[in-house]
C-alpha cells in the first residue's frame, strides 16, 4: 500500500486516504502563484537594519537595485543561456548517438553537467517551481530509487518513452543523473540501438533541454522582472530592495551548504560507517570535478553580488584558498573516506568549505546589508 508520494518513485497529487490503497496517478501542472520566491532550504535572512518600508501598501515603485540587475544580466542570464545551449546540444547529439560508449554523447552530457553546476545556485523562482531543480538534478538518491525506476522505464516499449512522457515520470529517472546512470552504470550501460534505454537517453535529454528553456525563459521574463521590481504594486514576493539581494545571498549559502552536507557529507557518513559509494558521480569519476565546478558557480554568483571591489577581492581570495584545497586532494571519487587517513583529508576539505561559508557570511552579508534570520533557521 502506498500512502504518500515518494517523489522519486512516482508523481502523485491530491488527497490520499489513509486506509485503502490507491494507484499512482500522474499529475498535470500545478497552479502556482508567481508572486513570491521559492526559498532555498537552509538559510533565512532578515534585514540587518530595521526600518519599515512605508511603500509596501501604496505600491510606490522602489528603485531598481544595480547589484541585482548586474548579477542577473552579467552572471545569471549568461549561465542560463549556456545551460540551455548545452542541453539542446545534448538532445541533438542523443538523436544520432544514443549508445553509452559514444564519446560525443558522453562529452555532450559532461558539458551540460558542467553548465548545470554554474546555475544550480539559482534556487529560487523558475528552478524551484514545480520542483524543476529535482527534475534536472535528483541527487542524492540515498534510498536507491533511481536504479529501480530506471529499470522499469527502460523495460517500457521504446516508442512510449518520449520527452512528453518524461514530464510526468518520477524525477529519479529525469535529468542529468539519470542520463549519467545510463551512460556509466554497468547495470544499464550495455544497451543497444532501438532499446528502451536508447529511447530513454533521447527522451530524457529532450526533456532536460525543455526544462532548461523554461528556467531561462522564466528568469528572462516574469520572474526576472519580479526580482528587478521589488516594492512595486502587486509584487508581494519582494517587498523592498533588500529582499532580492537576500534571496540570492540565501540561495548562494544554501547551495554551498549542499556541497558541505551532501557532496562531502554524504560519502563521509560517520567514522564507523563511511559511505564511499554515495559519492556523487562516482561512476563517471567526476566527484571532485563536480565540487570544483560547483565552486566556480558559487564564486561567479558571490562576485556578481559583491557591491564593491574590496568585497570582491576578499571573496576571490577565500575562493582561491578553497579551490587549492580541493585541487590538492588526489582522490577524484572521494574513495578515501573509507580509510582513516583519506577520511581525514576529506574532512579537512569539508572544513575549508565551512571556512569559506563563514567568510562569505562575514563579508558579503554585511556588504549587502543582510544577515541570518528567524523562522527557516530553526523550527518548532
Amino acid at each position, binding site marked *: *500500500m502506498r*500512502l*504518500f*508520494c*515518494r*517523489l522519486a518513485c512516482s508523481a*502523485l*497529487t*491530491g*488527497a*490520499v*486516504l*489513509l*486506509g485503502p490503497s490507491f494507484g499512482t496517478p500522474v*499529475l498535470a501542472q*500545478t*497552479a*502556482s*502563484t508567481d*508572486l*513570491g*520566491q*521559492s*526559498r532555498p*532550504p537552509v538559510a*533565512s*535572512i*532578515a*534585514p540587518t*537594519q*530595521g526600518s*519599515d*518600508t512605508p511603500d*509596501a*501598501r501604496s505600491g510606490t515603485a522602489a528603485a531598481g537595485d544595480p547589484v541585482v540587475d548586474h548579477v542577473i544580466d552579467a552572471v545569471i542570464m549568461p549561465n542560463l543561456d549556456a545551460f540551455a545551449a548545452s542541453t539542446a546540444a545534448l538532445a541533438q547529439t542523443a538523436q544520432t548517438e544514443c549508445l553509452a560508449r559514444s564519446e560525443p554523447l558522453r562529452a555532450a552530457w559532461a558539458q551540460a553537467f558542467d553548465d548545470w553546476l554554474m546555475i544550480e545556485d539559482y534556487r*529560487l523562482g523558475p528552478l*524551484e517551481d514545480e*520542483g524543476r531543480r*529535482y*527534475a534536472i538534478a535528483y541527487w*542524492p*538518491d*540515498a*534510498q536507491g530509487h533511481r536504479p529501480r525506476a530506471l529499470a522499469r522505464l527502460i523495460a517500457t516499449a521504446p516508442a512510449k518513452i518520449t520527452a512528453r512522457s518524461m514530464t510526468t515520470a518520477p*524525477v529519479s529517472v529525469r535529468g542529468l543523473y539519470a542520463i549519467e546512470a545510463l551512460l556509466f552504470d554497468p547495470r544499464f550501460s550495455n544497451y543497444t540501438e532501438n532499446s528502451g534505454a536508447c529511447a530513454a537517453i533521447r527522451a530524457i535529454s529532450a526533456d532536460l533541454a525543455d526544462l532548461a528553456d523554461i528556467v531561462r525563459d522564466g528568469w528572462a521574463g516574469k520572474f526576472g522582472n519580479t526580482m528587478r521590481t521589488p*516594492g512595486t504594486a502587486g*509584487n*508581494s514576493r519582494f*517587498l*523592498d530592495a533588500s*529582499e532580492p539581494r*537576500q*534571496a540570492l545571498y*540565501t540561495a548562494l549559502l544554501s547551495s554551498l551548504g549542499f556541497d558541505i552536507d551532501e557532496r562531502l557529507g554524504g560519502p563521509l557518513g560517520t567514522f564507523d560507517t563511511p559511505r564511499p559509494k554515495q559519492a556523487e558521480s562516482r561512476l563517471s569519476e567526476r566527484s571532485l570535478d563536480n565540487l570544483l565546478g560547483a565552486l566556480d558557480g558559487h564564486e561567479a554568483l558571490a562576485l556578481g553580488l559583491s557591491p564593491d571591489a574590496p568585497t570582491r577581492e576578499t571573496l576571490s581570495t577565500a575562493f582561491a584558498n578553497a579551490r587549492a584545497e580541493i585541487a590538492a586532494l588526489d582522490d577524484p571519487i572521494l574513495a578515501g573516506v573509507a580509510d582513516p587517513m583519506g577520511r581525514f583529508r576529506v574532512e579537512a576539505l569539508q572544513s575549508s568549505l565551512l571556512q569559506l561559508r563563514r567568510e562569505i557570511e562575514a563579508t558579503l552579508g554585511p556588504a549587502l546589508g543582510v544577515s541570518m*534570520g*528567524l*523562522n*527557516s533557521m530553526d*523550527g*518548532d
Partner: protein
Amino acid sequence: MRATRRGFLAGLLATGSAPALGWAAAGSPGYLAAAQEPDGSYALYGLTEAGERVFHIPLPARGHAGAGHPHRAEAVAFARRPGRFAIVLDCVGGRVLHSLTPPEGRVFNGHGVYVDDGATLLTAEQRVEDSAGRIGVWNVAAGYARRGEIDSHGIGPHDIKHLPDGTLAIANGGIATDVEDREKLNIDTMRPNLSYVDATGALLDQVELPRDLIQNSIRHLALGPDGLVGFAMQWEGPKSEVPPLLGLHRRGSAPMLAEAGPEQVMMQNYAGSIAITDGPAGAEVAITSPRGGLLHRYSTEGDFLGAVHRADICGLAEAGDGFLASDGLGGLIALRGGQPRALAKTAQAWDNHLVRLTPR
C-alpha cells in the same frame, strides 16, 4: 502520577477581581504575534487584520506562541520550548500581570489556549524525564493558580485547540526531547498522534499515522467548519522521502492526508503553521513552510489549489475569507483566493505564529 481529573469546566469567571479592560482598549487587535526587534530584542505585538501594529510589549526572551483572553486585553506569551516560563501580559498597560511556572518536573512545550470563556488557561506541557504529554490547567480567575493537569495521551504535545463542543484536540508531536538542549531522543521510535480529549482528560478519539509515516511529527492544528481539524506535520524521517505535511480529520471519519504533486518537495518536509478559512469560493486550508519560502493552499477535501511564494513565511491565521501571513523579513501579507497582497513591510522579524484573538 495520574493527572488530576478536576475538570477545567468547573471554573467560573472571576467575580472579585478588578475590572479589566477589553481588547478595544488595546487598539482592537485581531492577532497576536511574537517578533524580533531590529536591535535583537523580542516583543509581543497586537496586529489588526490590515497589518497595523496596535500595541507591543517587550518580552524577556524569544517567544513562540501566545494566547489571547477572549474578553480581556490579556495575553499569555510562551517561551520557546522547552519553556520554563510563560507570562501573562496586560496588553493595554504593558505590565506583566503574572508569571507562570510549570510545576516541578514539567516544562511548557509550545502552545496554550483559553477555555471556559476565559476562566481557564490550558498549556501544552511535557514531563521532564520522559516527555510524556500533559495539559496544564490554570485557574485564570484565581490569578492563574495551577489547578492541575490532564494527560495529553501522547509524547511531546505542541498545539492545542478547543472545539466548539468543548472537546480538546491535541497535537502530540511524538518527539521526546532532552529538556536542556532540545535534542531529539526517539526519532526511530516516535509515534505522533492527534488526540481528542474531554474536560476530564478522558481520551475520546485518537488518530495515528500509518506505519511508514510515523516519523511525521503532528505539531500544529487549525479548526474548520463542522468539526474539521487540520493538522500540519514536520518530517523527521529520511530526507529523500517526500511525505504529505497536511492532514484533515473529522471525528468519526477516516483521516486524509494531502499533498501537492511536484510542488510538494519544495516545502522541504516542514510545515510551520496551518490555518483554515471560509474562502471566497469554498473553505480553504493553508500550510506554510519557512524553509521552502512557500505557502500551499488546499480545499478541505485535500485538493491542492496552488502555491504562494514568500521568503521565510511562517505565521498564518484566517482573516475574513482569506488569510493573514507573516514572515521573518517583516512582511505582513493578506491572501484571498490565493492572491497575495502586501500589507506592510515592518522592521520587526515575525516569529513562528500569528494567533487569532477570536478563533473559530
